């Protein structure tokens, strides 16, 4: 049972993602911001992280950087979900170590496909 950590501060988006993922039989752990994610990633060891960007306390880019720079957690695939589509922002995300960058609004099936690919290490 693959575990996915969803890092997102908007409650309704959490409902959407949780429904989507649990329907596909993923186990879902929700963190409200980058800091919560960073603090719990080592103990929870998710198989993949869905990372929103705009969050209080610590944003998704910084959280991605920290998780990817730590050798204990750097192999966890991270998919960034962001409303920002500017190339500069995308580059920032990828340079921070993200394995994929998806722009909101995303197609649900595209997202599921990406998750599948990144978890299986394609």
């Amino acid at each position: 049972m693959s575990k996915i950590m969803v890092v997102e501060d908007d409650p309704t988006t959490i409902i959407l993602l949780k429904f989507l993922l649990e329907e596909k039989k993923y186990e879902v752990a929700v963190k409200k911001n980058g800091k919560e994610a960073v603090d719990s990633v080592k103990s929870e060891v998710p198989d993949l992280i869905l990372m929103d960007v705009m969050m209080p306390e610590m944003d998704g880019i910084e959280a991605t950087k920290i998780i990817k720079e730590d050798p204990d957690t750097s192999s966890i695939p991270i998919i960034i979900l962001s409303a920002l589509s500017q190339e500069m922002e995308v580059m920032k995300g990828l340079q921070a170590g993200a394995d994929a960058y998806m722009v909101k609004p995303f197609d649900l099936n595209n997202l599921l496909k990406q998750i599948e690919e990144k978890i299986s290490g394609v």
Partner: protein
Amino acid sequence: MNKSDNGIKSLYELNLKVFSSSSPSEAAGHLLNAMGKYAGKGPRIYLSSEGGSLKAACFMPESLANQMASFKIPARIIEECPSGALLSGQAPPELDNLFKALDTDDIYIFPAACRDKPAGFFILKKSLNLKYTARDISLFKLYGLWMAQYMHIYSQKERIKKNKAGINELKNMKNNFSSLISHELKTPLTLIKGFTQLLLEKKAGPLSRRQESFVQKIKDSASGLYLTIENIIASTENRSLGKVTEKEKINISELIKECCREYKKKFENKNIKCKIKSDTDIPPVNINKIKIKQAFGSLLDNAVKFSSPGGSIDVLVKGRGDFVQVSVIDSGKGIDKKAGEKVFESFYQCQQPKTRGIEGLGLGLSVAKSIIEKHGGKIEVGSAEKRGAELKFILPLKRVS
């Protein structure tokens, strides 16, 4: 001018030095050096004035200018001087204290006035005996003119710098605003799209015909809204001018492999091994095939140039969600952090001592950058912990809506 002028061999050279100075003080230094041979001369006060907005030309070191400011040289000193007049004898009373401070009472003064505002003064200390020739005087006039021009340009530069800083701040504010709007508008839109999709896929239970139809209408409405929002956001951003025409859907993986095949000869010439690693199943990109080939070719050219013979070039093509990322890693010396962004400037290579002697103008990467950005992508130096340099670019993938 003759060679005893402290190394400056011509007026032209002095001119260059003065105008390439980074501050009035530095320019002053050059002038002073050039005028060095006159430094002991004079028993006179000389005020030079020209027609038009430049009344007189002169200069003084910053510290001295500050002193002058505190002495409040009245503007009339400039105004009262007819063109090319030579004032002999005593200094005007206002300058008494200044001369005491300079330990001189006979000086050549060149007030620098740009558009009637005195900007500084040039002072030659007193000496005995020597006369200034007419040629000396005209040279002084020239020097002073230059100096005033320089100070004018300098203050313009300062103003431009300030404006630039202001513009950058505005840009930042606008970007932040743009990001905020993007986020606030697109997040609810994501939810509308997401939940309607789940409903239509019957994931929340069966729907009656009518319910299905209504939900479809909500979904379609949201799609329209999305396009509107995209247009609004795009219009507030500074996109690079110039559209890319003749785009087609291309399999980027195939394109990259094709390009590498075409470079086989170049690789062989330097005994370089090129390895391509690509994800499968990457959605197509919408690009101008020839231009992207050109851009990628520049990256390969760069990699070949800087790889040592017998080295290797790794090409990676990775699907990154809504973007595809192409990296080229060579086995050369690498790019240090400072050079980072600069490698994309035209002619950068020529200016660097390390890379001189390697053929080519250094135009390729800046052209590549322009092409990639016009396609809505971005190119950067990678975070290269590995040996050699990594150049990578991203391109947006065709989205299935």
